[in-house]
């Protein structure tokens, strides 16, 4: 019962953070701030959402798989954020914002 309540709460909060990340990525002014919004909320939203499902499914193979997915996502998402920021920086000078494509 309590576990149900916690997991529902986590799912709700996860959905909220995911949505806020989307809003941030859409409305913030330049690439690096958008990246900031997207990657931070991605981590928290992922943890909360997958955690909520994990609590619901109890001790089973599904939980193990979900934990694995969560682990890999937490490894790869910052890595791709790093690679993206590097690529954006490298394509321009050191502090100039990336120019529009042409």
């Amino acid at each position: 019962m309590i576990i149900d309540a916690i997991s529902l709460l986590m799912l709700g909060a996860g959905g909220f953070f995911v949505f806020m990340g989307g809003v941030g990525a859409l409305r913030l002014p330049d690439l690096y701030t958008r990246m900031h919004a997207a990657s931070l909320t991605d981590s928290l939203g992922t943890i909360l959402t997958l955690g909520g499902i994990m609590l619901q499914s109890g001790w089973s193979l599904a939980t193990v798989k979900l934990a694995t997915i969560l682990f890999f996502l937490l490894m790869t998402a910052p890595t791709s954020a790093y690679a993206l920021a590097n690529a954006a920086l490298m394509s321009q000078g050191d502090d100039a914002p990336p120019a529009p494509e042409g």
Partner: protein
Amino acid sequence: MYYAAAAAIIVTMALALIRALLGPTVYDRVLAVNMFTTKTVLLVSLIAFLSGRPDFLDLALAYALINFVGVLAVLEFVQKKRRPRRLP
């Protein structure tokens, strides 16, 4: 609440798509692709759980494992363009 979370994820997918359409730089689009992948993993996990067939989580696992290879390829692509063709 599951459906609320799933709806939030789909709306966020739409927002990321708008970002991908607006640009203005190609890196904004790569960022949108990145967000989109995470959202797909979450959505697939939720739906696999809701439909009661958790063995379909393999799809989410595949995305979680190999999504970053594409972004690394972007980094490599940019790096290759910047570097001189050959050593003297």
